[in-house]
């Protein structure tokens, strides 16, 4: 995507975030929208890994959960200020991603998928089991988010905070993609051999993008913890990891805006299925299969191609 279309996209996104509340009828709308935006932040980071760098992770919910629990535990059990807790958790998750990333990113395709799957599940099991720290399967409560004595509380406040975070996240992603680091990342996906020959440390680049996407997930997780007031181990479960990948893939890989679109669609989907919760799994599964079979490039790029064709470009 060119820098110009990035700029238009960012403006468009900001407008949507700013104006959407005009259509909200009650606090519940704000709540759902905020959840969608939090998921979108994770997806923007995950898209850097999957869409641009061509890797895969089936365990990213694990990083999200670690960020969430990190914030929860550090603020509620150890009294750390909210921002510090966010930062410390993000640093810890980044460090973990670095340690695990080095060995497993030597793998590719199916084996990388399974390794990341394993990591996610192990994190989930640890969160469920170490109840002295995490509250076990029932989870734990999280203190309100306070910054310089001001509490961020209530659906409206969280909507604006998360909206701002989302716009920043997309802006950072757009910056990165059209920079030397971003090009190196995409080159690794395009042809690892050619990238090496051009002087790119391909192994290091893969680890970098893995760590960055983990940090995005961790920060989003921390925000989620404070917003919900509560964390449970399932936010780090296999199902959530799969949802995240589906969001990225559905919206369109190699596009931060696609990732946002995918997150919004999949977060809103259960809302339209209200009363049909039993069909959630069937619909999600069908969406996953259908997208990859009929729209392998994802929604946004396919729509873009359609528009291009109609305009006779």
């Amino acid at each position, binding site marked *: 995507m060119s820098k110009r279309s990035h700029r238009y996209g960012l403006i468009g996104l900001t407008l949507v975030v700013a104006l959407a509340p005009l259509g909200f009828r009650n606090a519940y709308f704000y709540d759902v929208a905020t959840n969608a935006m939090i998921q979108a932040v994770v997806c923007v980071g995950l898209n850097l890994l999957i869409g641009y760098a061509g890797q*895969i992770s*089936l365990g990213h919910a694990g990083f999200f959960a670690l960020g969430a629990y990190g914030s929860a535990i550090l603020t509620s059990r150890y009294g750390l200020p909210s921002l510090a807790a966010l930062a410390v958790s993000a640093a810890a998750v980044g460090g973990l991603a670095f340690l695990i990333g080095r060995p*497993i990113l030597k793998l590719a395709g199916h084996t990388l998928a399974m390794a990341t799957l394993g990591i996610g599940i192990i994190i989930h099991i640890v969160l469920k089991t170490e109840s002295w720290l995490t509250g076990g399967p029932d989870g734990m409560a999280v203190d309100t988010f306070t910054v310089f004595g001001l509490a961020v509380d209530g659906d409206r406040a969280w909507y604006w905070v998360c909206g701002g975070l989302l716009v920043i996240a997309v802006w950072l992603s757009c910056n990165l993609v059209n920079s030397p680091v971003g090009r190196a990342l995409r080159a690794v996906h395009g042809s690892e051999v050619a990238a090496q020959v051009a002087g790119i440390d391909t192994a290091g680049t893969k680890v970098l993008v893995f760590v960055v996407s983990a940090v995005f997930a961790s920060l989003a997780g921390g925000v989620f913890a404070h917003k919900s007031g509560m964390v449970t181990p399932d936010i780090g479960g296999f199902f959530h990891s799969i949802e995240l*990948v*589906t969001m990225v893939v559905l919206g369109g890989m190699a596009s931060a805006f696609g990732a946002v679109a995918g997150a919004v669609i999949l977060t809103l989907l259960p809302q339209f299925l209200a009363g049909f919760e039993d069909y959630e799994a069937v619909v999600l599964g069908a969406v996953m299969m259908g997208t*990859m079979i009929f729209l*392998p490039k994802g929604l946004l790029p396919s729509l873009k191609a359609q528009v291009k064709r109609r305009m006779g470009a």
Partner: protein
Amino acid sequence: MAAQLLQFLFAGLTSGAIYALAGLGFAIIYNASGVINFAQGEFIMIGGMAAATLTASGMPLPLAALVAVAGTMLVGMALEKLAIEPARDSDTVSVIIITIGASIFLRGLAQLAWGKGFHTLPAFSGEVPLAVLGASLMPQSLWVLGVSLAVIVLLWWFFNRTLFGKAMLATSHNRLAAELVGIAAKRVLLAAFALSALLGAVGGVVVAPITFANTEAGIMLGLKGFAAAVLGGLGNGFGAIVGGLAVGVAEALAAGTLSSAYKDAIAFIIILAVLIFRPQGIFGRKKVDRV
């Protein structure tokens, strides 16, 4: 103490046999197409659930088992035709998502059909435990081991003694060459899914009396079956069997001696350890890429 260890060993071999069957299923499909079929676990689940609900509605057990297995095979073939074949030329990430989507879809359908509760299947020859060297062994465990062994022997005979089986092996070694001598790769792939579904379903039916059938059971069983396949060397049938038994026994020993809460984690720790330190598994060969 020895009796206790023996107890764990029996439990481990029993679940290990199911993992071995699942691992074999992974291996067969992987060999035929390079695809990791995430829905493998659902084959196990469907086999068990179908058998349980059919017997509960009055069908005699042997017939219910047969129908359950046959039904699962049909599901496997439908999956191949409708979801895998259309995506033949897609990249790895796409195919992974398709099979994961398929597993979620199948689980969703199963839950719509059978609900989320546990269903029982009566043990094949009663529930009176046998005393073996101080440990007690459920008769059903013997069924599990016996049936698994029989299925594996039949499988070996199929691949090595029948024409179609040999054709499948040939395709897994070199698809182009096989096609050039007239072997229909599409039919081989369909058969691979049918076989894997059969292996899964048989495992599901035979273990259901012990673990109770439940629509959520598929995920973990499938993933542990994958651990077995990876440990033994992806694509290596003998490795999948050894891997399955190893994972089962390791799990049981760890759960019994260390911590039962982390029982499920064992399989994944094994996956990670193998993929990091020896990605080709115990019996696999290292791949060399040509530039």
